[in-house]
């Protein structure tokens, strides 16, 4: 009889899980409230009044637009590089067995397993030693390095499910390697790549620690926010930008979830 009791959810567990989830989400919801506050000198709660005017103010800020544009460009290029490198690596690792395979998968994961500050400072000192000036491309270099792993994780999980006999069948039926890739492999791994690409984009769009070392004087959106956090100057504008960033990053994550929902999971554990 005691086993029957176990199948109902204990009240204490329900409450603890509920509080835990609330702890994860309430702070983010608070951002939405603050975007509408009329108070612009402090973080007063409850807000003395609500207004939409800060959205207009933010809309007319060239520095916000420049930071946003730089972030989007960096994230796009990094995602493309990560897609190519990550897919190649995943294909090689999952389709063949060779000496040093474990070492390569470790190498891919390393940039994200080590604290970001180590990646950042080592890239920066390498740029110094090689006398490479900071530019758009130094940011991309750093971002693509840690974005590879996200694409790789998603692609490897999917490659494991693509049966090798499918590829052999395609070749037996006369398709060459490129045709097989285009018509057999790509349709099978397409959604996994799309999901990996979206997560890579979100990761790059949000990255701040490595970027502080590789950006020089340029400001991506997270760097812009960091400056506002360290020395608050325009709190209302920061509130609005924070809210927009939350909304913008939610979309690719939701999309990636729906793309990989059946079967394997989104490999987000390695952020």
């Amino acid at each position, binding site marked *: 009889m005691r086993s029957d009791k176990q199948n109902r959810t204990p009240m204490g567990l329900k409450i603890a899980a509920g509080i835990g989830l609330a702890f994860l989400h309430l702070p983010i919801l608070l951002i939405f409230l603050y975007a509408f506050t009329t108070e612009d000198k402090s973080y007063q709660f409850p807000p003395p009044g609500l207004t939409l005017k800060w959205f207009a103010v933010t809309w007319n800020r060239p520095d916000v637009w420049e930071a946003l544009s730089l972030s989007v460009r960096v994230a796009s290029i990094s995602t493309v590089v990560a897609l190519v490198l990550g897919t190649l690596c995943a294909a090689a690792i999952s389709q063949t067995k060779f000496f040093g395979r474990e070492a390569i998968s470790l190498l891919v994961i390393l940039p994200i397993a080590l604290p970001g500050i180590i990646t950042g400072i*080592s890239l920066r*000192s390498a740029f110094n030693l090689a006398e490479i000036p900071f530019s758009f491309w130094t940011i991309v270099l750093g971002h693509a390095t840690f974005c590879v792993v996200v694409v790789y994780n998603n692609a490897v999980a999917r490659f494991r499910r693509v049966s090798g006999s499918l590829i052999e069948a395609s070749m037996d039926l006369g398709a060459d390697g490129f045709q097989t890739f285009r018509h057999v492999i790509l349709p099978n791994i397409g959604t996994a790549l799309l999901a990996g690409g979206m997560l890579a984009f979100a990761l790059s769009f949000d990255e701040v620690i490595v970027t502080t070392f590789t950006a020089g004087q340029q400001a991506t959106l997270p760097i812009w926010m960091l400056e506002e956090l360290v020395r608050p100057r325009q709190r209302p504008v920061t509130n609005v930008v924070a809210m927009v960033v939350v909304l913008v990053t939610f979309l690719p994550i939701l999309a990636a979830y729906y793309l990989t929902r059946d079967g394997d999971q989104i490999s987000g*554990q390695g952020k």
Partner: protein
Amino acid sequence: MSSAASAPSAAMLPGRGGLGGALSDAFWRNPKLLLFVMLTPPLLWLGIIYLGSLFALLIQSFFSIDEFSGLVVREFTLKTYGELLRPSNLDIIVRTVTMAGLVTIASAIIAFPIAYFAARYAKGRWKAVFYLGVMLPLWSSYLVKVYAWKLILAKEGILSWIFDKLHLTFLIEGWLALPVVGGNSLSVSLTGTFLVFVYVWLPFMILPVQAALERVPGNLLEASADLGASPRQTFVNVLLPLALPGIIAGSIFTFSLTLGDYIIPQIIGTSHRFIGMAVYAHQGTAGNIPLAAAFTVVPVVIMGIYLWLAKRAGAFNAL
């Protein structure tokens, strides 16, 4: 076709024409060539750019800085590592490791009920709600999350307001009056730093714990109960040992991420430094790259030991 005539496959099929066809044939006949072509770009990128930079940094940690000119002396020495043992630098290391340990323990305690509920009781739609409920905070902007806590912990913020409405303000004031954990307000105290660390890294603990718990068969718990164990005994003797690899896997993230972070303690915290802040300060205005490099070796060594212990505990199967 003529060039491929000697290959065994040509006995059955004619070779393909054109450059693409020839390449395709070559890859099919010689899979090692394909492997080589596939692996070269990622290995060039990660092996040369990334590993190269890491090694360059490691080498620089064995250089030292000339105390008079402030220039880096490129001679092999252990002097810089000796500087790590100065009381002020040891303080930073001890503070960071203690914080990482406490954050890990707190994350494990908060994560467990969420992971257990999601793994065992959530079905169908609720399963998706829990999954996204963890994924969305995990992936939403790091800085926005830190910013949200700046709003919460501010003196005029929501937390003070709630405690004021409950007439419990003396609790916060009493806590802030304590040494070490206290401060002028929550947003400039180590308590604040701790809360934000736990918040930001919590999802990294939930996911592996949930993965470990999902592998625990439900009838094992029923058997334990049928054999007369109280829920507490079942938890301690059955559930916890089975969840431990997941907790250790999660702790790798919470521990490593706390060790390397320098933004959270800079925005919400006291003037006491953490390893990341020391690295940032030494490589920046101070220009002391060797000491900064030696400081970065500390978390790497700590994580190396930690990973080795975790591997022995079988945590990697839960990742």
